């Protein structure tokens, strides 16, 4: 079997559910016909209609409810990486769509990073990825994201190269602005290894008071441990942890006075081979609703966001 390794990343802007079903259905059926592995991560309401459209082919498609596949958003990277690892010599065709209307501003920022990083993380993998966007109610912000991050665009007339594709590193840089923790944050200095366990108790106490549920608190506590450990290992003193209500999300903000990871692409995938280092930021992204990493004159900031149910 010849292996065409280069990944493709295509945006489809569709008008209405009928077009979604016919375009996405045909796309998935093409994968089945080519004996590719086929995965569809789409909102639950669309799963059934896609199954009907595909008929017998549906049995050869792996369907995942987007609520699970995108919980949190970076989980979709893990699902695709795991699928690719299961059969490295077969092309994997994926349709991935989530309900972006429910996402907070921090999550939309991370969504933009996610779409940009597809082009970096999967570049050399045999992946054919289609991202459908519902034209109905599509904000200009989301439309711009779709135009900047896909190598190709598809519409009713067909598929063509995207002229507006932007450099992923430039997109990440554009999203790296950070603001200092607000004055009403509760803060903890953490410059020694023993401070990490103190930070865990600190997060646990305040997250419970902020009304986060127990599972989410466990995830946050682990994510804060990892980011603080990175700050202790790679960053410089003084190092602090700030906790605050950021509106739609509750924020654990780790600051250190170092320059931060030199590589802007750090932590979007796990190390390729097992290693003693390099899992912290990847793990944090798999545990939090959104993660911002940025630097300013005072050092490096990592913001771990947990959505607050209001």
């Amino acid at each position, binding site marked *: 079997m010849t292996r065409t390794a280069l990944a493709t990343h295509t945006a489809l802007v569709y008008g209405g559910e009928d077009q979604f079903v016919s375009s996405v259905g045909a796309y998935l059926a093409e994968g089945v016909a080519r004996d590719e592995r086929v995965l569809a991560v789409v909102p639950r309401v669309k799963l059934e209609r896609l199954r009907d459209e595909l008929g017998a082919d549906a049995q050869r498609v792996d369907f995942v409810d987007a609520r699970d596949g995108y919980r949190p958003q970076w989980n979709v990277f893990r699902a695709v990486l795991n699928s690719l690892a299961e059969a490295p010599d077969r092309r994997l065709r994926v349709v991935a769509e989530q309900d972006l209307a429910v996402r907070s501003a921090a999550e939309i920022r991370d969504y933009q990073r996610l779409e940009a990083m597809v082009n970096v993380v999967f570049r050399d993998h045999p992946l054919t990825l289609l991202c459908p966007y519902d034209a109905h109610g599509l904000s200009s912000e989301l439309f711009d994201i779709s135009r900047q991050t896909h190598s190709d665009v598809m519409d009713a007339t067909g598929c063509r190269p995207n002229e507006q594709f932007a450099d992923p590193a430039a997109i990440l840089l554009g999203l790296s602005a950070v603001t200092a923790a607000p004055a009403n944050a509760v803060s903890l200095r953490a410059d020694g290894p023993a401070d990490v366990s103190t930070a865990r108790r600190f997060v646990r106490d305040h997250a419970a008071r902020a009304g986060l549920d127990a599972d989410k608190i466990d995830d946050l506590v682990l994510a804060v*441990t990892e980011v603080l450990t990175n700050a202790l290992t790679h960053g410089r003193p003084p190092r602090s942890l700030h906790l605050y209500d950021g509106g739609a999300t509750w924020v654990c903000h780790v600051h250190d006075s170092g320059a931060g990871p030199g590589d802007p692409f750090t932590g979007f995938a796990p190390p390729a081979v097992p290693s003693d280092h390099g899992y912290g930021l990847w793990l944090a992204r798999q545990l939090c609703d959104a993660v911002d990493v940025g630097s300013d004159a005072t050092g490096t900031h990592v913001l771990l966001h947990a959505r607050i149910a209001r």
Partner: protein
Amino acid sequence: MAIPPELATANLADVAPGTHLCAFYDSDEQLARIASAFVARGLAAGDRLLYVATDDDAATSMLSSLLGEHPSCHALSNGQLQIQAFGDVYGDVHTGDFAPIEAGFRAAAEQTRKSGFPGLRVAAEMGDFARFLGSCEEVLRWEQRSTAIQRELGVSSVCQYDLRYLEGDDAARVAAEHAALSPDRDDPPMATFLAVGEPWGLKVAGEVDIANRDALIRAIRSRAGVSPRVHLDLTELTFTDVGTLSRLHSLAAALPHDGHLVLRRPPDLLRRILAITGLWHQRMVVEP
């Protein structure tokens, strides 16, 4: 009898291997507190504890009662904690020749490694040591020699002096030969790594992260040095980070082919980290 005020009190959490501590007591209760803090901290780190007692029956009952409900209550039966009579250890000292005790020290350190413990810590009741050696000068000479041997072998100790046996400025002179005072109280450690004989390995309780993962890895390596089939009982592990798990993965990967590292009853958190990182290894067995 005044204890020299200039000598600092050590934090047992930060005592490096090879540190020579001392302590002074004037009651059995105070001795029990000093001994218990030092012994519990050493056992928690997975080290072997040798307790040298003026009266080994009394010491056995004291340590048994202090271990009582403690997680390390099996330490006496599985050999992690050993109690020896003062006379058996220091029996030949009165000849003025330290060579036999030195040899005994080295043999104990060697036996510690062979028994699968990462280090040896000694708590000694110095009760009538001065009378035994003949003079305070001889005691000081031995303490100086001991400092050098312990540093070389990486053996930490606390020499527990009964103030009721010391005269004049003896306490001050004795104290000056030690790095610091050993405290009579200690905060509970973040985690304990207690030796288990059957199945061979360790029982890990508490939280493990950047602050103590090197100590855990050191303890596991010592167990693996005796038998490469190591079981970690993780029933009471309450937290672990990915750095710890990746170190366990490396350790399992470096075991011989007939070896394995069993992670028994790990918390859900550990399984979650495994799933997210993919740090599985054929010789790192998660059960059940």
